[in-house]
């Protein structure tokens, strides 16, 4: 199969988040960037699907600036055949989805996989928007996928359970934990990645629907009221009368 995997470049999960003094910018100083963890699942699953099918290609695509290239090289080291970077500063989910749809529309992909959401802006909208822009099905939060005869058999999380479903290729899937374990690049992969193609293309659509007006840090907590292990009844009373949550 010919599979496109969408890669987002996000702050490492241990990052302490802070904003500029005017609250207009996210402080990027000293922040380590990683491949979005859900996108790593998408990449690994794309490789597994092609291994099961006995062949195919995996293209990794990123919409963003040059500082994401180390992570695109990492995607190549994990096993993607080639990578594409749309050279622009993305503004919102629609901006990213429009660029990817523009790139993908005449390339004959059988499947596009992305993470269920990025762990920085958490919009979770690129998969659905891509589906609509390409007029393909989109299936969110998939936890299992196999393909045969131009059709995919899937499981996905739904509110209060799980759904088993079928979708005809091509379609867009957003990947949820449990789909697979992310693959780590080995030395051979890292060596090979250096000579794999990484194509840089200009942005084609440059259209956003939203913008960040200001950021805000979470309100600080008042402080913890400590009780002794023997004071469980007092705790229950506090939850009832003071906190009013039970």
């Amino acid at each position, binding site marked *: 199969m010919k599979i496109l995997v969408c890669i987002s470049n996000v702050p490492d999960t241990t990052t302490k988040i802070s904003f500029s003094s005017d609250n207009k910018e996210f402080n990027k100083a000293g922040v380590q960037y990683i491949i979005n963890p859900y996108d790593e699942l998408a990449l690994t699953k794309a490789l597994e699907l092609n291994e099961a099918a006995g062949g195919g290609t995996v293209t990794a695509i990123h919409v963003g600036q040059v500082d994401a290239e180390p992570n695109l090289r990492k995607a190549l080291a994990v096993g993607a055949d080639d990578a594409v970077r749309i050279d622009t500063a993305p503004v919102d989910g*629609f901006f990213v989805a429009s660029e990817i749809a523009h790139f993908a529309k005449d390339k004959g992909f059988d499947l596009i996989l992305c993470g269920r959401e990025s762990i*920085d802006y*958490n919009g*979770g909208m690129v998969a659905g928007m891509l*589906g609509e822009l390409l007029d393909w*099905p989109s*299936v969110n939060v998939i936890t299992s996928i196999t393909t045969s005869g131009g059709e995919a058999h899937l499981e996905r999380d739904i509110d209060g359970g*799980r759904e088993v479903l079928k979708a005809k290729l091509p379609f867009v899937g957003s990947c949820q934990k*449990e789909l697979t374990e992310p693959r780590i690049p080995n030395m051979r992969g890292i060596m090979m990645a250096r000579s794999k193609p990484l194509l840089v293309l200009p942005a084609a659509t440059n259209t956003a629907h939203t913008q960040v*007006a200001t950021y805000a840090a979470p309100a600080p907590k008042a402080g913890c009221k400590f009780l002794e292990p023997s004071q469980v009844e007092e705790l229950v009373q506090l939850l009832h009368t003071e906190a009013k949550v039970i």
Partner: protein
Amino acid sequence: MAVVVFAENNAGSFKKASFEIVSYAAAIARMMGTSVTAVVLGSMEDAVASELGTYGAAKVVKAADASLDTFESHAHAKALAEVAKSEGAKVVVLANTYAGKALAPRLSVKLSAALASGAVALPEINGSFTVLRSVFSNKGFANIQLDTDVKIVSLTPNSYKVVAEGSAAPVENRSLGISAVDFKSTSVEVKTVTGKIPLTEAELVVSAGRGMKGPENWHMIEEMATILGAATACSKPVSDMHWRTHDEHVGQTGITIKPNLYIAIGISGAIQHLAGVSGSKVIVAINTDKEAPFFKIADYGIVGDAFEVLPKLNEALSKFKAAN
């Protein structure tokens, strides 16, 4: 220029998240000087649908095409877009549930409407339209400005108080002509978890970490959840070690929740975990280590061994529940 709100149809009835978003939509409509049209897709009795009036809907549009009983993002987006257009919607409100997350992006493209997903407060409307949503997996917030004529807001569950002040609303039945060709994927089977409160909807959550020492000790956690009517959750290491299934994992790479009460037992409170639960209204932490980071964001803390505290706490909760 109505506000249109999509109330999810849960096999003929509504869940609390739907009442929340109708109340939220009603507040937006008041700001805009307009009214709320609620949309229900699939089979439901009129009397049930009309109940949305209690929460602020001026009318309910119901498309009872039986095919819409099965959720499919393409078909549902088409149906909802049709109603939104016919009502002249300027704002469309959804719940940021799995269904809402699948539907909203497709609707956004169909209506050329900006989408703010995971909103946590009412928008500010004065010249521009901005709404607060959590970003960086709850480690921060962003005011998002929506720059299109039509706007879509999906509200994080448990972010807005249900307001029941109105009376039953008239129900208008429509046929939207959704047919099999509109369904781009085919549902084979829906497996609903029964006897368990879904974590994303839970108002009370009991969560545990590695401090429980092994999956065989989870009966104490489940017992507390049963006493309280709470959902159970766990930390990332616990789900990684397969002590519990991944759908219980809360944190930055798991589920983000904001219940009224979050009880954390034997979880130290790594920054990734705290990100997923810091929106909880009240947090109780029980941990042997008094330096555990969880105590920094907790409201109530007990420094102690879970194996010692839990049996006593469960007994105290049982007694409380029996008396109240």
